């Protein structure tokens, strides 16, 4: 199986430009630069690459929208805000294989005739900043970068991962989302056509350009080609990041690659795409992990972050902590999200503390139902569906927990 994202990371010097070059690095860029920008976009469209930032939007189409906009200057922004709890895949690229991202950005900048590029890096990744800055300097030194490429450090706000909030933040403002449309491809950074792509999305480009769309299409599943990084955490024997073809089943990821459930315990629940993705019960783990299939199974691929919970885990507590996260990270702009996430958190908190009341589950369903579909950006929707799906799949645990605390239920 071919690994082009993190294939080299057992080599301790993989982040060095010389090592990257030795493995064929920057040849894809040389090839792309010899092509017309339109043809690069054509190749990316043909490859079927879909954005790895969570929504799975076709990258070639996004690029075409921006390229077709007559306005200049245009910008390419790499979304390296990786804040989705459970997710640590982009960090591995940034720290261990930064040149694959830089090469991808250079290809994007050429294809879009962009003036410059930014990497919006989350503030909690100081190590990644060092390796990335060194890699950028080395790429300049070797003459690979013919445009300004800057790192912009975030400062601890999850919502800045949302692309329009990210642009606000990059402009020096509070990170609150903008109304769409207009979309960033038409009116983004300081109004210029702006392409925003996730780290992993951009890191797919060198392989696509070097090997061609046809080879790329042979990897993964037909509707979602290519490899995907799956960061696995929680109660597994071998947590870590696994680079596997799109469409690998959740079962294979958990039991083969991550070594199965810790200490031979049984699986109780799994979150397949970072904390914003609805939880799944164990009978759903034959789900192929790609954007289309996970949706059919009632969740979403999101960031691909697999969080595993063994028998004995208190899911009320997990749900409470998830909602605490959404409450904390709500930007405060719209009422259903700002108020609703706090309300859900407080109901879960009293249930967790053994002070739940009769009717609390229905109350949560009501509150979540009033958040869903009524928020300015997807953060609130995510929070509502997280709460609703914990209740949907584990209702009896929530019922049993009302009026009693965890210790009596033999969960932790």
């Amino acid at each position, binding site marked *: 199986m071919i690994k082009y994202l993190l294939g080299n990371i057992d080599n301790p010097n993989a982040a060095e430009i010389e090592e990257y070059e030795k493995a064929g690095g920057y040849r894809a860029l040389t090839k792309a630069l010899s092509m017309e920008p339109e043809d690069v976009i054509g190749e990316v469209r043909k490859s079927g690459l879909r954005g790895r930032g969570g929504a799975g939007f076709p990258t070639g189409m996004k690029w075409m929208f921006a390229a077709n906009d007559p306005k200049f*200057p245009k910008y390419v922004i790499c979304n390296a805000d*990786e*804040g*989705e*709890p*459970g*997710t*640590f895949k*982009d*960090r591995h690229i940034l720290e261990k294989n930064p040149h694959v991202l830089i090469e991808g950005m250079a290809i994007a900048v050429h294809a879009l005739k962009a003036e410059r590029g930014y990497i919006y890096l*989350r*503030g*909690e*990744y*100081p*190590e990644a900043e060092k390796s990335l800055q060194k890699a950028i300097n080395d790429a300049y030194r070797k003459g690979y970068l013919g445009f*300004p490429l*800057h790192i*912009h*450090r*975030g*400062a*601890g*706000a*999850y919502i800045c991962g949302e692309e329009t909030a990210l642009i606000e*933040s*990059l*402009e*020096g*403002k*509070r*990170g609150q989302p903008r109304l769409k449309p207009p979309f960033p491809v038409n009116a983004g*950074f*300081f109004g210029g056509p702006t392409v925003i792509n996730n780290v992993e999305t951009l890191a797919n480009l060198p392989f696509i350009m070097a090997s061609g769309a046809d080879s790329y299409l042979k990897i993964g599943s037909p509707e979602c080609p290519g490899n995907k990084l799956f*960061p*696995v*955490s*929680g*109660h597994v024997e071998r*947590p*870590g*990041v696994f680079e596997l073809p799109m469409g690998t089943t959740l079962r294979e990821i958990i039991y083969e690659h991550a070594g199965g459930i810790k200490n031979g315990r049984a699986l109780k629940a799994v979150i397949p795409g970072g*904390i914003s993705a609805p939880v799944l019960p164990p009978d759903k783990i034959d789900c192929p992990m790609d954007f289309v299939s996970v949706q059919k199974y009632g969740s979403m691929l999101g960031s691909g*972050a697999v*969080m595993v*919970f063994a028998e004995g*885990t208190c899911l009320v*507590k*997990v749900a409470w*902590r*998830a909602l605490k*996260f959404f409450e*904390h*990270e709500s*930007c405060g702009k719209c009422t259903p999200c700002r108020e609703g996430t706090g309300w859900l958190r407080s109901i879960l908190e009293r249930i967790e503390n053994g002070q739940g009341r009769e009717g609390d589950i229905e109350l949560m369903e009501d509150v979540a139902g009033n958040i869903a579909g009524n928020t300015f950006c997807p953060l609130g929707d995510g929070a509502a569906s997280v709460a609703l799906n914990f209740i949907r799949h584990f209702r009896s645990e929530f019922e049993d927990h009302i009026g009693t605390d965890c210790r009596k239920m033999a969960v932790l």
Partner: protein
Amino acid sequence: MSPAPSAEKPLAGLEEIKKNYPASSAALMPALYEARRQFGWLSPEALSAVADALNLPKAAVRSTASFYGMFNQGKTGRHLVRICTNVACMVLGAGSVLEKLEARYGLTPGGTSRDGRFSLAVTECIGACDKGPAMLVDDDMHTDLTGERITEVLERYE
């Protein structure tokens, strides 16, 4: 540490940063990082210096700074300990690590130890979920924490 810039001495080093953006207003976040480094924390004086250096209204600077967790920390001890309590770290025992910090250093989230050595903040996921519980001490990541390991690690910070 170099002496904190005084009100008369403007924030140094912003000219280079401004060049990275089409408008100097966009240099606000890096300027806040720079001010935090030069002043030690984002004091009212530091925020004013940023406003002057970028030619922005003070209210705009405060508005942005107050939005971001990392610009909103107030004055901290010599080392800022940020412990992740999000789900992956929680199910791997972040709670018992926090208990240990309270027992050993009298540290509770939002607080500073009496000797001014550590301030503690709980944080959302810091991208080390495979090796949780995880924390950042200043800019250093530490993982696989237990009640024992955390004191061992923290004792390395003076």
